[in-house]
């Protein structure tokens, strides 16, 4: 018996060792990723990992960094032009639009091939056709995919909602979206949609071959098959590795057309890519580094990631000057820098559905509630917030049109973002608010430490105008999904959130206060102002024009006057990258579209001090 046991143990150990060895081996094959020396590799860094690489889930810049590089989109933003401008990408040209603005005809470039993949009959990538685009947009209307992008086209492109209602059968046509021939698309709208072309630059509209979607099903999210500049090598929660797509179409860079500004951008050495066809890299790696400290250290080591945003805690060490932003010499010697405002903002809206501080059937209470909201807005110390959290580098502004929007009005009165404790107290007193009858403010946040300190700061401001300590309370949510649910269900009186622009048009933020978008839509404030809604509807079918800008600004003023939100602040992004990297990095709007233009010089060529 005893010998038997010993044999058994020996056997087990052997199995364990083999399993271990096999583990190592399979591990190697998984990470069969790292560049053999000699390949031109660029290591990018992001602060979060995408949860899926399926275009139906391309809801954020993290996913788009990979999606728009693995897949093709019809349009794209110009590499260097700021403010952002569209250019044709897979599309041969801008669409031909009918006179009523309802029918769009788009031709795509012929001869574009998907990457080789076992999903194709002979394993070789076939040509991308107009029908593939139709298929890809339909996927956003197929509940099986749990798509996130349908809202871009819902109620806009004719027939898609009906197609979905009829059971999402891909063999059935959708009336407003069809391929006229191999290379021509026709799109019919229910009403004019000036932002339609912008939506075709989004990762949501990336083009997926039907063979891949059907073969991989859900696993398409980890196994992209596209026609973008790069193809996937490996992907997990800590990094994605891609390699050059050998079939990618040859389109020499025309810097002029990309919006190159020699004064502002020459320092990056970007002229080196003029006339060459992207992608320039053999390998593209993106490390997902959640802890900014880790990203920063990795960046500074020199042989790891080559790009980083400057972590907020490093600002004082890195910057010599904040206005204008300048690097300290030791950093300037080693790194290139770009800084700019984000295309988005943070704000805290009141949920107007709460009768304690929002709409009340009682007109008197309604009036007092408005005074209460205005007082809270006056007590909100944007300057302190900017100093504490953004080293004074952020820009705070009145209203909801963000500074990077072309419609932003720099001359707007700054009263709504100016701290006025005395004024706030007076307002409360004059409207009969006392510490006893003030409502409890429930401030919902996710569980992080920064969010907690945001709350503590907010509580201290509210205490300054007379709120008792225990009438400002925090409700924490484990995940963004959980707090999102609370917002969508209208469970929180204060909604503190950020919004990143989907496209460079103020409509994208104005819709946040459009009545019919109320919970569970994006109007978490549940602001309902008939006049505002009328103006929104009117402007939403207008092309950019001074008249539309005027309407936008009127709407902006309404939100400010009604004291609906403490708003807003746009953060400054500071990007650093190694000097041997030729690039103008950017992560706003769609995200990641610059990666195909990145080039890397041999290190010896650029090292400043040998």
């Amino acid at each position, binding site marked *: 018996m005893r010998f038997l046991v010993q044999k058994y143990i020996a056997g087990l150990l052997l199995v364990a060792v083999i399993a271990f060895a096999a583990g190592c081996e399979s591990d190697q094959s998984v990470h069969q990723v790292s560049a053999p020396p000699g390949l031109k590799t660029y290591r990018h860094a992001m602060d979060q990992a995408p949860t899926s690489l399926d275009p139906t889930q391309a809801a954020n810049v993290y996913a788009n960094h990979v999606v728009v590089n693995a897949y093709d989109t019809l349009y794209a933003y110009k590499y260097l032009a700021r403010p952002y401008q569209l250019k044709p990408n897979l599309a041969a040209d801008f669409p031909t639009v009918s006179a009523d603005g309802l029918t769009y005809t788009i031709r795509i470039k012929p001869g574009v091939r998907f990457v080789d993949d076992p999903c194709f009959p002979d394993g070789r990538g076939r040509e991308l056709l107009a029908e593939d685009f139709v298929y890809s947009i339909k996927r956003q209307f197929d509940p099986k995919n749990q798509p996130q992008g349908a809202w871009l086209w819902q109620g806009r492109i004719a027939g898609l909602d009906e197609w979905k209602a009829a059971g999402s059968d891909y063999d059935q046509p959708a009336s407003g979206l069809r391929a006229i021939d191999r290379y021509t698309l026709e799109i019919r709208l229910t009403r004019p949609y000036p932002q339609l072309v912008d939506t075709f630059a989004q990762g949501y509209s990336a083009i997926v071959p039907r063979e891949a979607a059907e073969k991989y099903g859900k696993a398409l999210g980890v196994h992209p098959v596209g026609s973008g500049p790069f193809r996937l090598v490996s992907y997990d929660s800590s990094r994605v590795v891609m390699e050059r797509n050998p079939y990618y179409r040859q389109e020499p860079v025309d810097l002029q057309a990309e919006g190159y500004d020699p004064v502002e951008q020459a320092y990056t050495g970007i002229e080196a890519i003029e006339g060459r066809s992207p992608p320039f890299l053999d390998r593209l790696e993106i490390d997902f580094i959640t802890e900014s400290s880790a990203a*920063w250290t990795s960046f500074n080591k020199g042989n790891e990631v080559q790009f980083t945003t400057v972590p907020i805690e490093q600002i004082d060490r890195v910057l010599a000057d904040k206005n204008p932003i300048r690097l300290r010499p030791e950093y300037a010697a080693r790194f290139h820098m770009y800084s700019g405002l984000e295309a988005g903002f943070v704000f805290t809206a009141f949920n107007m559905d709460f009768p304690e501080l929002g709409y009340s059937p009682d007109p008197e209470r309604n009036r007092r509630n408005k005074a209460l909201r205005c007082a809270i807005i006056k007590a909100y110390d944007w300057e*302190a917030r900017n100093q504490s959290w953004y080293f004074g580098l952020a820009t705070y502004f009145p209203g909801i049109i963000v500074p990077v929007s072309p419609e932003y009005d720099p001359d707007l009165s700054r009263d709504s973002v100016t701290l006025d404790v005395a004024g706030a107290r007076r307002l409360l007193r004059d409207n009969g608010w006392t510490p006893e009858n003030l409502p409890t403010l429930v401030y919902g946040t996710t569980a992080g430490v920064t969010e907690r300190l945001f709350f*503590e700061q907010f509580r201290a401001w509210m205490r300054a105008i007379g709120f008792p300590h225990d009438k400002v309370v925090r409700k924490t949510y484990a995940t963004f999904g959980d707090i999102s649910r609370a917002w969508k269900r209208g469970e929180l009186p204060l909604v503190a959130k950020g919004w990143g622009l989907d496209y460079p048009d103020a409509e994208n933020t104005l819709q946040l206060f459009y009545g019919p978008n109320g919970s569970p839509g994006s109007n978490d404030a549940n602001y309902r102002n008939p006049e505002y809604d009328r103006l929104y509807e009117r402007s939403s079918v207008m092309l950019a024009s001074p008249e539309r800008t005027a309407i936008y600004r009127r709407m902006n003023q309404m939100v400010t006057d009604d004291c609906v939100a403490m708003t807003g602040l746009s953060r400054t992004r500071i990007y650093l990258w190694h000097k041997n990297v030729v690039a103008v990095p950017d992560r706003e709007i769609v995200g990641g579209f610059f990666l195909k233009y990145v080039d890397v010089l041999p290190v010896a060529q650029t090292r400043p001090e040998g």
Partner: protein
Amino acid sequence: MNEFSSVAGARAVNRRNSIWRKVLRKFLADRTGVAGLAAVLVYFVAALGVWCGWWGTDWADLGGSKWEAVSAAHWFGTNIIGQDIFSRAIYATSTAFEVGVVVAVLATIIGGVLGAFAGFFAGSWIDELLLWAMNVLDAIPFYLFVAAVAYSLAGSPYAMHVAMITSFWIGTGRLVRGEVIKLRNMEYIEAAYAIGLSRFMIIFRHILPNTSHILLVQASIAFVSAIKAEVILSFLGIGIRDGMSWGLMIEESTKEVLAGFYNNFIAASLLMFGLVMAFNALSDALQDAMDPRKVA
């Protein structure tokens, strides 16, 4: 009949008293242990002051500007939004005691009672059931379990406590069970049993008190574990909800240290280290003093 039980009881009480006297004497002879106890008492006074409102009251106020250095007004400087780090660190002491005491006391009570039942009914279905429950809870990795409890009780300020108690009672339970199995066969228990005392009475009057040396040591271990776990859980974002703790301060500091601001980190980690160290010393001395082989 009653006389008999009181004789059995008195004998047990006598045995207990003399043991406690010896334990106390042994403990007092242990210099490290006494020093630990003294340090714990100092911390306790600090916490008491917070509960009584003597100090630490301004932990939530924005009393200064961002990251002020050490000064007379702010002994440990201020944090990123201008709150006084000294007040926060002191306030956190009371949180540490709250977390530690709540978790230690409840985990020990639950572990003691359930362990005693399991041991007393060893071999029966009650014991099997309790052992099964212990194994089940043991099989789930601690941090995942705590995270899961915290998320499923989302928003509750006591999610962390519940999670820790649910994990920490098991160790105590197992030890008490083992001890009770031994005690169960001792004569005074047999005597009490023979004269018809209810089993409930026997467990609570005659058995549990005789496991008090285990309970005390286990409680001190649970206290330390709770304080240490709080730091990790706060880092993972599932710790204290409102108020202030060392874990939250260390979490605040993970980014600050890279900006060269160490006040939060030093204040919290030193204070925490001190208390944990003192408690470890105390707990060691208790363990030494109560080692039944050395006492009996």
